[in-house]
């Protein structure tokens, strides 16, 4: 039984079958990649996992609890964090404040009216945030505005904000999209480090095969909204069905 179990998920947009009978099982402490050509339904699937979309039918179980019908923040509180294609951070706030917000969310839940407490007195939260920043080598930038960071730093900050919550499942939506080779390699290293140090389960959607084969232990190939194969990277390489999906008719 995996930590994330997707069973028979269907999603239609008007006449378009975006997802057709998707089954997926992500095992605890593995890195599971979901790949597929454009329009294969990867993002739709991801949005169904985090509560942004609700599937027409099927079930999505996280740790034996259904996530369907829950709001994004509730799903996060269950232990699922998400990294976006373009880093989503609080650009108007400082790096340290960015980091403190998930710490508060972890301690206080979805809402708390701590209007008359002082930020300066939140020693525990501050330490938690600073430790995490230290870990991703950003402590020296803690007073900078997050909006002024480089793209790579924004990505690292976003990742750190997810990690500090100690999620049980980290979803990554094309974390290296639009990055230069060097940045991509840095990101791979960062993810590898996270994988080894923290033993966090990761589900990663990715175009870049280099990234996928450097990280993943299991790979699911989606095509036209349906999973084609699920296997280890070695078996996926050179799999005829996968070639077909990516190259289409030309493979025949």
């Amino acid at each position: 039984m995996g930590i994330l179990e997707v069973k028979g998920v269907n999603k239609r947009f008007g006449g378009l079958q975006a997802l057709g009978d998707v089954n997926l099982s992500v095992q605890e402490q593995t890195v599971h990649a979901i790949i597929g050509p454009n329009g294969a339904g990867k993002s739709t699937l991801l949005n169904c996992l985090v509560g942004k979309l609700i599937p027409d039918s099927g079930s999505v179980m996280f740790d034996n609890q259904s996530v369907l019908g829950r709001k994004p923040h509730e799903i996060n509180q269950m232990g699922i964090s998400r990294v976006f294609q373009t880093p989503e951070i609080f650009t108007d706030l400082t790096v340290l404040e960015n980091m403190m917000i998930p710490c508060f969310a972890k301690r206080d839940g979805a809402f708390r009216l701590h209007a008359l407490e002082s930020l300066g007195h939140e020693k525990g939260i501050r330490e938690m945030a600073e430790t995490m920043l230290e870990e991703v080598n950003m402590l020296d930038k803690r007073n900078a505005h997050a909006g002024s960071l480089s793209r790579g730093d924004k990505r690292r900050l976003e990742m750190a904000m997810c990690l500090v919550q100690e999620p049980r499942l980290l979803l990554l939506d094309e974390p290296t999209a639009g990055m230069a080779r060097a940045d991509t390699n840095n990101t791979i290293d960062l993810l590898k480090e996270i994988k080894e140090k923290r033993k966090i389960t990761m589900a990663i959607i990715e175009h870049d095969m280099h990234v996928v084969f450097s990280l993943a232990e299991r790979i699911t190939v989606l095509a036209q909204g349906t999973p084609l194969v699920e296997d280890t990277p070695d078996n996926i390489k050179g799999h005829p069905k996968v070639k077909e999906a990516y190259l289409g008719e030309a493979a025949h």
Partner: protein
Amino acid sequence: MLGLGKKDFSLLMLVLVLTMLAPFILNPFPEGSGMAQFNAGYPDLMQRFVIFGIFAIGFNILFGLTGYLSFGHAAFLGVGSYAAIWMMKLVSLNVIPAMIMGVIFAGLFALVVGFISLRRSGIYFSILTLAFAQMSYALAYSVLTPITGGETGLQLKSTDNPILSNLAEGEIGRASLFGLDMRASIELEMGNWLFTLNMGYYVAAFVMLIAFYIAIRIFRSPFGVMLRAVKSNQNRMNYTGLNPRPYTLAAFVISGMYAGLAGGLMVAMDTQVGPERMFWTASGEVVLMTILGGVGTLIGPVLGAGLIKYMENIISKINSDILHTWFAFLPDGLEDLVVTLIYPFIGKGWHLTLGIVFMLVVIFLPGGLVEGGQRIARLFGKRRKSEDGSSAGKTTPAE
């Protein structure tokens, strides 16, 4: 001190000193001199400074921190006023229960309006708040006349007999604080200067200090950071396990309570209220105040409120005769020309000046007067800044 950082504490102390000495500071010109008309140190105007200061501080907690632009905030001010005057009519002439009632009722009303309006964001939110406020105005004006007094509004009358007071038959009650009359004043004559120390003003100023202190605490609290997060990126907030809605609603209610407090204070000062207090132009005014002073800053809204009320009461009184005496030193033709050029901007035309200043601020100085001040300070204080090192850059967004 008081749970504030050093910088915030000095700011609070500065505001404390300024408000306590306002009757002197705002009356710099001797009586009878040509400049005396620029004196703002009379009780009525000073009360308005601090009351609208409270209103704007509260509005800024919503708009400055969360970025939700309410175009109907005057409704809460009005509800606070009506609640306060009923408290005075029925229960007690003491201003404290009146203000508390104002805060409670405005808060409840804000809870309802906010709960509905916050289901939308952006311009939809602005229109919803505007619609609610206009509805309140229209209802106060017409159907709710038994409660609101309709067009004429409500005031304390000789027939009112609050249970906790012992008024003589036919005596009109006066607002008081444990027996101290709000309208009591001490006049100090010093040489050619006349200073008026008014009880009502000091009560209002004290309330504003508390309101200001609470605002600083909110700005510097984890809650304040969450509100800025709402403005910055609601998507990330959701995916960080936080629910933006109750945070925004809490900010909306708090800022509605500030408006209610301001409304209650207004009644405490002049014991009357009319529906025009809720008209949308009144809501627009608090927007102007906050932006002019500096949105998202602590002291900005207070400055903006002061500036607008000063213009409304002082600039509007300048007429062409006064202009002519000022420019009498110029040759006749030139004098007339100068007066003609300036005249549209003063007196009844002060709104024109306000509109122009406001536009200039939005275009060139999005941080308002506070940003202007900072720019000037930076111009003169470059050397000092380099000495402070890192700490100077850190607090810029919320000064």
